């Protein structure tokens, strides 16, 4: 942690000692080969976006990266120094949560239903896109799968195997194997789903759950109540996603982001009946932007005031539904809402939180 913090602080140091001038000169003219290769790795869209946006836009992005590195560097270095001076260790106790077999049962059932929806979307889209496979361009590590788009019979075969493995996940005995297979199939189908020069984060929170779920299945090899860390980790990751979303807005745009014109322009661009109505009222636009920012930041309560979690999740649903209603982005069953399943299972009948446990389960380690 300390090393990472101090390493991050080297970025602003070099940047301040003359690197910035080189970066500005390169972005305003033609980047030198070394900067070009860095841009190709970290910001490949630069070569497309530079045709429509001024150099100052990219310079402010570079400054922003350094600002963020400084911020995180200071935070990590300070934490390290505090732990060193006060001789305390950072406890991970809060990660352990009582998880009952019944919680696992509900999570298996609900995740299988969600996975079925994900399967339906990915399988159908990947199959439909065989018609436009001439546009397929594998990106980043998708290239490892080769330049060819899969044939329809291959998609059918893998789709059916994926579906069967998903069904097997309903049984506790097969849950671990099924969760690993689901992660692999999800990655495979998604690589073709996003192979048309456009990627988005629709399934991102579900992906984070899929990444942790095999660990949860592994923990539940035994029956009864256990102290699970993976369920709490899934919840923390979802919360962090929202907090980072809020931080992005304020670090990039500052308080300008809350200006009503910001939403009005977007509402006019997306042209929905509800959006056109809302755009007429600057005060309501400002209120909506403020609420969005507060809702996203309120996910911090999941760390600090867990009792408020149901309210935070309800507000999260409201936010996604509003985005759909006013901007026509996502839909009622937005995958980010579906990801709330990792919170909801704790409130379902028989789960650890639903019934008051007689004693706290033992914490491993």
């Amino acid at each position, binding site marked *: 942690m300390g090393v990472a913090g101090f390493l*991050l602080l080297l970025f602003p140091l070099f940047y301040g000692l003359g690197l910035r001038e080189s970066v500005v000169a390169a972005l305003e003219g033609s980047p030198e080969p070394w900067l070009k290769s860095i841009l190709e790795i*970290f*910001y490949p869209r630069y*070569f*497309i976006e530079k*045709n*429509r*946006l001024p150099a100052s*836009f990219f310079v402010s*992005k570079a400054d*922003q*990266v350094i600002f*963020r*590195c400084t911020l*995180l560097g200071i935070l990590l270095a300070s934490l390290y120094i505090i732990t060193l001076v006060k001789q305390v260790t950072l406890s991970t106790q809060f990660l352990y949560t009582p998880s009952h077999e019944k919680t696992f049962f509900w999570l298996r059932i609900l995740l299988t239903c969600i996975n079925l929806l994900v399967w339906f979307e990915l399988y159908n889209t990947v199959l*439909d*896109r065989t*018609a*436009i496979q*001439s*546009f397929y361009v594998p*990106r*980043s*590590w998708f290239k490892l799968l080769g330049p060819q788009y899969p044939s329809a019979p291959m998609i059918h075969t893998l789709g059916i195997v994926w579906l069967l493995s998903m069904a097997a996940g309903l049984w506790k005995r097969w849950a671990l194997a099924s969760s690993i297979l689901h992660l692999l199939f999800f*990655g495979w189908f*998604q690589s073709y789903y*996003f192979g*048309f*020069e*456009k*990627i988005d*984060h629709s399934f*991102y929170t579900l*992906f*984070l759950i899929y*990444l*942790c779920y095999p*660990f949860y299945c592994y923990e539940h090899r035994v029956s009864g109540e256990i102290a699970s*860390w*993976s369920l709490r*980790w899934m919840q923390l*990751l979802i919360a*962090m*996603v929202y907090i*980072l*979303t809020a*931080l*992005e*807005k304020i*670090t*990039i*745009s500052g308080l*300008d*982001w809350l*200006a009503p*014109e*910001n939403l009005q*322009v*977007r509402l006019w*661009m997306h042209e929905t009946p509800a959006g056109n109505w809302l755009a007429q009222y600057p005060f309501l636009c400002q209120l909506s932007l403020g609420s969005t920012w507060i809702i996203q930041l309120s996910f911090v309560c999941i760390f600090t005031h867990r009792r408020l979690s149901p309210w935070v999740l309800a507000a999260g649903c409201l936010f996604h539904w509003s985005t759909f209603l006013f901007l026509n982005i996502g839909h009622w069953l937005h995958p980010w809402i579906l990801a709330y399943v990792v919170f909801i299972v704790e409130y379902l009948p028989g789960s650890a939180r639903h019934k008051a446990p007689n004693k706290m389960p033992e914490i491993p380690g």
Partner: protein
Amino acid sequence: MARKVLYTVTLLGLLLPFLFITDFYPFFRLGMFAETAKQSGPQEKFVLLMLTKKNWQALPADSFKLSESTFHDLARNHIHRGECEKMLEKISALLPQASELKLIRIQPSSDTNLVATWRKR
């Protein structure tokens, strides 16, 4: 051990895109609408026109099996690579009835311009 690997991978996966303001697939930057509408620059639109009975007709993207957003991104990327004719050639394979196609770019800040034309040989 496995637990520490998961903690590290997911934390780096969340923090690196935030720090470097870019996606590290499968981990994403979460900057949706973070820029103000003004900062995100002029919104350009692309339209595909097809010659039908001596009239140019604008085609919705789903008529050649693309979603609007995918078509928009493909058009922008093909312009950047200087491969617009190639793009129209690929679209023409999805529109057997097409004899002539045009790709138009509409920018609020400047005039509408013709990007590429394709004719059946």
